[in-house]
C-alpha cells in the first residue's frame, strides 16, 4: 500500500492555461495499492486538475508532443519516463515548448 504522497506539480510555457492559469499546484496523492508513477499521475491530473480540453495536454496515456516533462529539474527521459516511481516531495514540471521570438 503506497502512503499518501505530497508533490509539487508545475505547469509552464503556456500549459498552465489549461489549469486556470495556475502554475504551481501543491498536490497530495491518495493511498493506493500500487506505487505512484508518472503514468498514474497523468491519469490523476486528468481527473482532478485538468478542467477543459484534455487532448491539448494528454494523448493516449502520455503527454502530447511538444510538452517536456521534468522530474526534479531533469528531463523525464533520464528518469524512466512514464514508469518513474514518484517519491514524497518530488517536483514534477510540465512545460510547453516555446517557439516565438
Amino acid at each position: 500500500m503506497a502512503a499518501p504522497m505530497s508533490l509539487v506539480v508545475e505547469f509552464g510555457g503556456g500549459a498552465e492555461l489549461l489549469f486556470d492559469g495556475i502554475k504551481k499546484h501543491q498536490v497530495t496523492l491518495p493511498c493506493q495499492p500500487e506505487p505512484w508513477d508518472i503514468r498514474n499521475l497523468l491519469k490523476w491530473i486528468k481527473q482532478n486538475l485538468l478542467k477543459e480540453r484534455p487532448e491539448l495536454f494528454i494523448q493516449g496515456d502520455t503527454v502530447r508532443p511538444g510538452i517536456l516533462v521534468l522530474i526534479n529539474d531533469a528531463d523525464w527521459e533520464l528518469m524512466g519516463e512514464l514508469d518513474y516511481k514518484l517519491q514524497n516531495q518530488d517536483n514534477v514540471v510540465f512545460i510547453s515548448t516555446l517557439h516565438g521570438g
Partner: protein
Amino acid sequence: AMALSEAARLRAEIERREQELSALQGQLASVLAKEEPGSELPTLQARASLSLAEILRYSRQLVLPELGVRGQLRLSRCSVLVVEGGTAVPVMEKDVEMSNLHRQVLHGEAREGLPKALSAAASLRQLNSAVQYVPYHLALSPSTALELVRQYDVVADCSDNVPTRYLVSDACVLAGKPLVSASALRLEGQLVVYNYQGGPCYRCLFPKPPPPETVTNCADGGVLGVVPGIMGCIQALEVLKIASGIGSGFSQFMLMFDALEGRFRNIKLRPKKSDCAICGDSPTMTSLQDYEAFCGSSATDKCRSLHLLTSKERISVEEYKKLWDEQVPHILVDVRPQVEVDICSLAHSVHVPLSKLEGQNEECLKYLGKRICKEKQRTSSKTAFPVYVICKLGNDSQKAVRVLQELPDKELGSIVAKDIQGGLMAWARKIDPSFPQY
C-alpha cells in the same frame, strides 16, 4: 524667438534628411532583394595579432583570462548565421512592423517597412563597423538552408515558428554546426544549445511536432518586450562562448526563464538519442524535408484562419456597418478576453469572453439574455433575433457562433447568430481607421 525658429528650421531639415535616408534604404532593399543569396561569403583569415583599434575596443574583455587575446582572435575569424522571423513562405516577406519594435531592438521607427535583415544589418553597422554583416532578405527554405548553414561556424535560431525550428535544427545536424536556440512567449523564455559536443538535437527532444492547435505565437499569446531581449542577450553570450573557444555549458541543458517569478532554472536534458531520425546512429533523414507539411502549420507567426462556419453564417464588416447605420435592432457580442477588450472595443458591444460561453457560464448567459430582451423591445418582429459576434480576427467569433447555435431556445430566446468576418482588425482596416490595430 530666434532660438525657437532656429530649432524649427533644424527640425525641418532633420525630417527632410530622414525622408531622403528612408527613400535610399528602400532603394537599397529592392536592389539587394534581387541579388542571388548565399553566393559570396568572404572567407575570414586566421590572424596572428589584434589591431590597435581592436585592442582599444575590446580591452575590458581581453584582460579576462577566460577569453584573452586567443579567444578574441578566434572570435574575429568566426561567422555566425542569425535566423530571424519565419520566412519559409515563398514570397519575400518579413518587413519591420510597428508591433515588432517593442521587443526587436535592432529595428528602429525610421525603418518600419524595411526588410528585417537589412534593418538589423544597418543597426549593427552603426554599433560596430568592423564586423561584416551579410543581410539575407530571403525565405529560409529546405532548398536554401543547408547551403547557407554550411558557410557559417555557429547558428543562432531566433525564429518564431515550429517548422522553421525543425528546418534550422536539421540543417545544422546535416552541416555539423552548433545551434544556439532561444525562444520567448508571454513572460517566459527558453534556451538550448543543440548539436554541440555530442549533445542532442531539437529532434532528439521533440521527435514529433506539437499539434498545430496547441502552438501559440507572439501575436496571439503576447510577449513582454524585455523577455526576448533577455533571452537574446544570453543567446549572444553562448554564441560568443562557442565562437571564442570558451565553450557553452548548455549542451544537453535547457535554460528556462520565468520573468514573473524572476527565476532561472537549469534543466538536465536527455543525451543525443541513438534512434533520432536525423542525428541518430542510423538516420532515416539524409536531406531536408517539407517542414510545413511535417508540422501541419505554416512557417510564420501570423495567425491561422479558421473555416468553421458557412458563408451564410457570416457577414462582412461592410454589411455590419450598413445595418448599424440603419439602426437595425440586434446585439453585438464581443467574445475576446478581457485584456484585449481593455485595449479597444466597439462602444455598443456586449462583452462575453469565449471561454465563458464555451463553459456556458450562467451569469454571462443571463446577462446576455437580459441585453437581448431589452434590445428586442425596439422591434415588434417575431422572427429570430439577430446576434452578431465579433473577435479580433474572426476565428473565435466562429466558435462562439457554434456555441450560441447549440444553446436551447430557453436560454436566450429564439436567436440567429452570425459572426463578423475578419473581426475588429478588418473593422479597423476597412471601416474605421481610427480604431486601434493590435
